[in-house]
């Protein structure tokens, strides 16, 4: 009886070690998936990873899956503590008026304090909707810090590029509007 108990304990210990090993492997494999920014840097155009986040202002959520493949999207990762984000968001606000009805503009307020973020939008006159990515998990899948990061998704749901230099904005906007 004691011998059987001892054998059971040994089997349980080995099973526990194997389970922890499997968890480690799973984490390494999951973390090694390239972000959208990394894929773009290697010349690939990945399908936009979906997310489902709460709106920054008002109730409800935005599910990117419901937009992806239906309309071109400009995705703007920003935060109220990010100084360069002010200028980029203002440029997107102006572009939104030009491409109204043809391109969806969506902000992702990331690693930010919600009340400050709402004040920031009001202060700088940013009217396109934003969702709140408080823990930054969505930002990580798209490329991580630093921000601002602005991505352009065509009508088929493929990420065609991200804004690197000023000239990228009109070029990518034309490209996804025609997709």
């Amino acid at each position, binding site marked *: 009886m004691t011998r059987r108990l001892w054998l059971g304990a040994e089997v349980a210990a080995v099973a526990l070690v194997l389970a922890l090993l499997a968890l480690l492997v799973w984490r390494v494999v999951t973390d090694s998936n390239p972000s959208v920014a990394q894929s773009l840097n290697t010349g690939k155009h990945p399908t936009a990873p979906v997310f489902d986040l709460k709106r920054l202002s008002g109730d409800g959520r935005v599910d990117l899956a419901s937009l992806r493949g239906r309309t071109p999207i400009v995705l703007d990762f920003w935060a109220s503590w990010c100084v360069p984000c002010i200028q980029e968001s203002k440029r997107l606000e102006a572009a939104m008026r030009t491409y109204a009805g043809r391109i969806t503009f969506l902000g992702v307020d990331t*690693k930010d304090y919600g009340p*400050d973020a709402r004040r920031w939008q009001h202060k700088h006159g940013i009217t396109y909707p934003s969702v709140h990515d*408080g*823990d*930054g998990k969505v930002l990580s899948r798209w490329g991580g*810090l630093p921000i601002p990061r602005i991505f352009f998704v065509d009508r088929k749901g493929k990420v065609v590029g991200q804004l690197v230099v000023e000239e990228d904005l009109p070029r990518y906007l034309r490209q996804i509007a025609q997709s």
Partner: protein
Amino acid sequence: MIRRLIAGGVIALALAPPALACNAHPSQAQLEGEVMCPVCGTTLDQSDSPAAQQIKRAIHRRIQAGESDCRIKDALVANYGSSILAAPRRSGFGLLAWWVPLGGIVVAALAVGLAAWRWSRRREPEPAASDPSLNGRGALDPAIERRLDEELARYDG
């Protein structure tokens, strides 16, 4: 030994409630040491980044409004997720992070103690104390001993 361990566990559980209690008047320094900066990987008190300063201001406003540390932390977790706290909460699922390592140490100590006890019981018994005159050898066969005595008696005679 087991009784002492159980007693230790009971004492730890008895002391747990004070640790779980909320501080109604937290200090800015206390919370800055317990909350992470979301972009730097350090606690707030070690960072002057704009994101850290933003949270420091939010904490300051809430302390001024008379909120407890639990309430302030709840608000920050609701906004940033549980990773904003430098240490897991001492309640709910977070309690596991505190007790599982302790439980693991206790279980490991018990296993080692049990193994040592079993090993000590299995050891071979010590050989009986032998006659020093044998010089480590076994006793002579009685027939050989009798013959040896006869030979010695013959020489003595």
